[in-house]
């Protein structure tokens, strides 16, 4: 997947670039509106990560530009403003999703994947890893083709792990993913622990492998190499 990161803060742009590159995306950066327009005219991108506040104009202008020039590609808006109108306007102007600063990198990745799954017309709604299969449309999980009885939140949690494989997910990042920005996630980390415990237990009971590692002091990691032969 080819991604254009439009963000004027170079430190943040490089963070996003580094994280997404490790996910095997091809990432390019534009630090202002002008650069972004140039790149969009010459190259095709699957997804554009667009900051609303740019030094030479508003990201919303770029949305119009993309519409006018019939440029394809999904758009994920990033804004420091938590303002409702920005969100509504952005989505009305053709953006696919919206994320507010300060965001978690795994969250950004999960959003990109979700947009990609939705846009990818002939794409499957199944996220599969070894014996685990998750349907993002019906929110059903199977372990070795056997149905797993899980709650909606547990599916969301598992999906978050599956799209951020081998990445460290902090408890705060998980809390934000499960309950959103509005809720006070500081006090939700205990609930994260319980959710993780429950899903691990359920997968275990269904004879699935426990890929989720606890990283002491930090959070959790979905370790795909855990049961590889020779390790």
């Amino acid at each position, binding site marked *: 997947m080819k991604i254009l990161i439009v963000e004027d*803060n170079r430190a943040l742009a490089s963070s996003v670039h*580094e994280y997404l590159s490790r996910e095997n995306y091809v990432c390019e950066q534009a630090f202002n509106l002008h650069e972004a327009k140039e790149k969009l005219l010459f190259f095709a991108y699957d997804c554009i990560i667009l900051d609303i506040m740019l030094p030479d104009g508003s990201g919303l202008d770029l949305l119009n530009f993309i519409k006018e020039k019939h440029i394809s590609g999904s758009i994920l808006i990033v804004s420091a403003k938590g303002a*409702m109108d920005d969100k509504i306007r952005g989505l009305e102007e053709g953006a696919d999703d919206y994320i507010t*600063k300060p965001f978690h990198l795994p969250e950004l990745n999960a959003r990109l994947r979700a947009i990609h799954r939705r846009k990818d017309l002939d794409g499957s709604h199944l996220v599969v890893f070894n014996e685990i299969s998750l349907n993002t449309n019906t929110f059903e999980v199977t372990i070795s083709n056997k149905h797993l009885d899980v709650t909606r939140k547990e599916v969301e949690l598992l999906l978050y792990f599956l799209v951020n494989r081998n990445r*460290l997910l902090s408890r705060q990042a998980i809390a934000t993913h499960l309950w959103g920005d509005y809720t006070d996630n500081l006090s939700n980390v205990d609930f994260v622990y319980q959710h993780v415990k429950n899903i691990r237990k359920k997968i275990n009971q269904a004879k699935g492998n426990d890929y989720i590692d606890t990283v002491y002091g930090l959070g959790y990691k979905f370790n795909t190499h855990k049961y590889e032969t020779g390790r």
Partner: protein
Amino acid sequence: MKLVDKFTLCFLLIFFIVTPISIYSTHYSIKQRIDNVEIERLSAVNNEVALQLKSGISPDKYSQGRPISISTFAGNLPNEKILTEKQNYDQGECRITVSSFYNIKGLNYKVSSYNYVTQSGQILRGMLPVALVKSLLMIVAVLIAARMLSRNILSPFNQSLAQMQKFNLRKKKPLVLAESNTKEFKELNLLLKKMTDMAITEYGLVKEFSENASHELQTPLSVLRSKLELLADTNIQGDQAILIGEMQHAIEKMARINYSLLLLTKLENQEYEATENISFAGHIKSILGFYEDRIQMKALTLTTHIGDDISLKIHPALADLLFDNLLGNAIRHNVKNGIINIKANHEAFVIENTGAAPVIPTEELFERFKKSDQCGESIGLGLAIVKQICELNKFNVRYTYRDGIHSLRIDFNGMAVADSAALVAQA
């Protein structure tokens, strides 16, 4: 004390000081006049008698109705040719005796005549009732006139006062004051206008600053958070992991505080204006669904009594935020196997939960950064946001704690309408 009363009192005080003085001086002047006239007349009579003596006519005992006494005496004539004597009598009269001294044909004569005039006390007694009536008239006139005048003259002042009372810095509406042709009021209005205009500008700047500061903080916070996430994903040691974990926790807290402060600023700036009625019960239900897992995990017993749907004029985002904060608190500050009761109708919304007793008075918990320290994780802005939302929508909010139950009640103050058409299933 009212300004007009002060003026009236001062005026009356002056009146009561001046009146006796004026009565006394008037009385003195009248008395003096009467006496002088009589003395002149008596000396004229004496002169008449002396003339008669000169011409050898033996005078009568009375001349012009005034008794005369004539005597001769030895020695020199006194320097004062005329001598007056005053004697008061009981009948309210005063006898004035005028004695004149003459040298007629080598003999020294003393001619005395007297008459009765009204005593000074009598004159005073005559003046007092008039003075009293005059005083009463004066007091009544002053009282009425002062009130009427004050209403007239002070009307621009009172208007300015009313305008100032209505003035709200948060509304950012400049003060409009009535015109006045009184110099002092003109100056006052000018000053008030200048002060309020300046306050509005300064307030705007402060608000703008805090909003901008919060915005500008979002990007560095993003950088910090993302870099730490990348760092945590590298090959790190256990003790480094703990350091990073603690940093992440602090950044999380900072992000949360920043978000809440930004929200409070936006609420103060009236950025969330209610445009249409929403179904409050619908919002309650959707948020309850959102918290379902957390309520279950803490093994809380939830009972809801939502009588009928409530049509409430409030910005939908604020309705969510309000209930989200309240329910979040009710869960966070609850005990395991605790209780949450939610009651709502078109008059009020009440949420009750079990929990430890608050260590500070419940009303203080509405203040920013005030928190009951049992739960160190909260940042202490949730209830400040609740209060701000309630104030914005003219609701009353009250927090009480009794017998282990925290109860938060929001009175809609007639801003909500029962909407029985859309009955909400009771949970």
